[in-house]
């Protein structure tokens, strides 16, 4: 019964989405207040209905209702509770339901918190948002319905893909989806602004917090995905340039560009047309990502949905939204007035360069991901594009960008003096070089890229600190003034410094882990040990393993340093019962300078086991860096000017009848 209610709610949501698409838009044309205002009700109703459907499906998973085909195919009664919950979105239908649910949440958030938006703009935003919901609801109901029944109901379900049975992976899709889908708001704002024919500083200020939310969620979502790959896949890698990873990375790159270009629109009124285009592109890439992952067009490590018929449907949605919005852009963009002149060397110029390099980096990821598909479709010829390609294209484009990051905030608006800005950074550069030399004195090995990467990381962190130090006048002003300035500094300034500094941590972690990793692959018997980077890993023995829904064996290891026990770790080889699929659990010691990573391999002759023990230097810096970037995003979000919205004067000047 609950399933039927959920099913009904989903169909009802479709009808509401149709209403939300048409009526507020029409109301905005006719300047009809009540019709426009009804969009708000529709958006709220939609989130309630889809929420109800989502709860109904979750209930079916929690109670292991195998008469629901989706549950029978993807769940198992033995599964631990948290994977029954995460199982809801661990499959195609459920994940699409989560997708539209988050879309509806964002739509409702605009309806609720957008009270300072001009009525027509708000109605149009909700209408565009409704149309996206409509398209995906049709997709859900027509070809990916999670509420189909299965009769007769099987006694037991097929189980969730064991590789997905992990806390980090279980909860990273909601973050990623929220990030993906959050960009729909920037898209709706852009399309609504194109229909209205007006983009101003107020528009940029409204659109920025939404982009910031999406960016922060994408950052943490990608970070969690990388963390999961690091300790669950058992290879010790964290980023594979897998198409599915690229699918989330492309929107992140464009969202980063958008975040920066929207600053220029907000502060100086320039780059309006470009910012609109970026808003459209960011969400278009989210749609492309959804298409890549959901259509099964590429079968990669992560892809767990393979159904070409669905691909065609998503492709049609892609064509309508991307084609439609770009056509609208081509028609309307020329009529948008460019504003805010600036010299080539200026803060604006710096942000333009940031956007250029981010776009080119995104182009590298885009073409590297899609070119093999295009080539195979057109000529039948198969090529592989892997990590070496991205290192040679994305790398050289992204490196200079990283190098320029600390300089950007030092440039003044309108016209800047590069030498003067560099002079303010000299101590950051000197300190970064000194620290790099210290690191090199301690560890001198590996390719030339290693010291360069370390220097880059320090430069990013110190450069961000230098900006704050500069702004509060530390060292040049009396302490009471420094304190007063520190208190007066907007939170977005700290947010920027954190995000840029976090990037530095990430760069150091990535480079050092990739280049200075120490790895031992040996075949040892219980009682023997492996020396790893000053630690000693003692193999204590093998035990049989019996989990709630898997069996296998586990290896116990003692990690010691100069004779003292540091940590006892366990590495498991699990065989999941319903599907007989093997997974590996890594024995991990996390420490500041690096992780000791122990993986139990296959059993060899006469009681020996293959054991892989590695020292992954600075690995924690990667996750820490991503987290700090996420925090920077959140902190910027609490900035006063975003919290209280647009100053009254600007709103009144823009639209005299803005009051609702």
């Amino acid at each position, binding site marked *: 019964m609950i399933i039927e209610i959920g099913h009904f709610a989903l169909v009802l949501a479709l009808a509401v989405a149709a209403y939300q698409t048409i009526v507020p838009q029409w109301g905005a044309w006719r300047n009809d207040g009540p019709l426009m205002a009804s969009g708000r009700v529709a958006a709220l109703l939609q989130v309630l209905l889809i929420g109800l459907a989502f709860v109904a499906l979750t209930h079916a998973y929690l109670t292991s209702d195998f008469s629901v085909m989706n549950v029978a195919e993807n769940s198992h009664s033995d599964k631990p509770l948290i994977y029954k919950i995460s199982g809801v979105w661990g499959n195609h239908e459920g994940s699409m339901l989560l997708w539209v649910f988050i879309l509806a949440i964002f739509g409702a958030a605009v309806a609720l918190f957008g009270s300072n938006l001009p009525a027509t703009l708000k109605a149009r935003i909700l209408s565009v948002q409704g149309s996206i919901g409509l398209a995906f609801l049709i997709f859900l109901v027509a070809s990916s319905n999670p509420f189909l029944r299965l009769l007769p109901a099987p006694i037991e379900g097929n189980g969730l893909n064991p590789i997905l049975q992990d806390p980090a992976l279980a909860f990273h899709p909601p973050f990623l989806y929220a990030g993906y889908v959050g960009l729909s708001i920037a898209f709706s704002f852009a399309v609504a602004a194109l229909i209205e024919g007006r983009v101003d500083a107020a528009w940029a200020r409204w659109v920025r917090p939404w982009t910031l939310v999406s960016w922060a969620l994408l950052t943490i979502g990608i970070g969690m995905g990388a963390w999961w*790959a690091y300790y669950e896949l*058992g*290879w*010790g*890698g964290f*980023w*594979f340039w897998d*198409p599915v990873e690229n699918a989330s990375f492309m929107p992140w790159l464009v969202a980063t560009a958008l975040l920066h270009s929207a600053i220029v629109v907000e502060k100086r009124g320039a780059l309006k047309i470009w910012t609109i285009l970026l808003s459209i592109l960011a969400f278009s890439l989210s749609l492309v990502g959804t298409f890549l992952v959901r259509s099964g067009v590429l079968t990669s*490590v992560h892809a767990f949905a393979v159904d070409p018929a669905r691909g065609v449907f998503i492709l049609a949605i892609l064509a309508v939204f991307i084609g439609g919005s770009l056509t609208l852009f081509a028609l309307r963009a020329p009529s948008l007035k460019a504003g805010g*002149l600036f*010299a*080539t060397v200026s803060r604006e110029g710096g942000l333009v360069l940031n956007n*250029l*390099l981010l*776009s*080119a*980096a995104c*182009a*590298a990821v885009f*073409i*590297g991901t899609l*070119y093999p598909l295009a080539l195979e479709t057109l000529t039948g*010829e*198969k*090529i*592989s*594009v*892997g*990590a*070496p*390609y991205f*290192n*040679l*294209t*994305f790398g050289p*484009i992204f490196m200079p960008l990283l190098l320029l990051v600390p300089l950007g905030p030092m440039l003044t608006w309108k*016209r800047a003096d590069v030498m003067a800005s560099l002079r303010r950074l000299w101590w950051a550069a000197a300190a970064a070089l000194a620290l790099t030399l210290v690191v090199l004195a301690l560890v001198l090995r*590996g*390719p030339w*890229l290693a010291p360069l*990467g370390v220097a880059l990381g320090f430069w990013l962190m110190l450069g961000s600190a230098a900006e704050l130090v500069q702004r509060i006048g530390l060292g040049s002003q009396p302490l009471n003034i420094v304190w007063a300035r520190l208190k007066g500094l907007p939170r977005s300034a700290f947010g920027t410094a954190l995000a840029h500094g976090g990037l530095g941590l990430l760069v150091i972690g*990535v*480079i050092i882990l*990739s*280049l*200075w*990793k*120490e*790895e*031992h*692959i040996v*075949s*040892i018997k219980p009682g023997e040990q492996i*020396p790893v980077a000053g630690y000693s890993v003692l193999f204590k023995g093998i035990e049989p393993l019996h989990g709630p829904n898997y069996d296998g064996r586990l290896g116990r290891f003692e990690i010691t340093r100069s004779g003292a026990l540091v940590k006892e770790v366990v590495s498991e080889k699990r065989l999941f019962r319903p599907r007989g699929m093997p997974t590996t659990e890594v024995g991990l010691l996390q420490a500041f300078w690096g992780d000791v990573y122990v*993986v139990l*391999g*296959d059993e060899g002759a006469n009681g020996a086991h*293959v054991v*892989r023990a*590695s020292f992954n230097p600075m690995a924690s810096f990667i996750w820490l860096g991503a987290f700090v970037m996420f925090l920077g995003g959140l902190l910027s979000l609490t900035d006063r000017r975003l919290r209280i919205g647009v100053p009254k004067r600007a709103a009144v000047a823009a639209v005299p009848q803005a009051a609702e």
Partner: protein
Amino acid sequence: MTKFFATIVLLLGILSGPALAVQPDEILKDPALEARARAISAGLRCLVCQNQSIDDSDATVARDLRILIREQLVKNQTDEQVVSFVVERYGDYVLLKPRLTAKTMILWFTPFLVVLLGGFYLLRARKTQAPVHDQLSDAEKAALEAILRK
């Protein structure tokens, strides 16, 4: 068992996943040779896997290829010879770094073209745009005076 340090030396290995699929019995005695074997393996695709290099994969085919590469290296073949040896048998599809041919020009050059053309367009747009005014016009000066005098 001799201590063995496997440092992965990649050409420009910024973001590459290291390998754990290599088995102890495959590892060559000579660390320099083994390091070369690992670097070559990281650039070759495991044909039955999805988007994994043979260095990352524990599939049997990947293992066979890894052993094949090491056999060739032991025979004093250069890295290029070893790679061509594999490509002759398995085709270009095995290369994770596609060769630069007429068909992959777009793939290799697009990212850099975006930078060049984008930069060129921006600089040209700057030139045609009205210059930033250094000085206030007389009318503006008068207006400023009027405001300041208030």
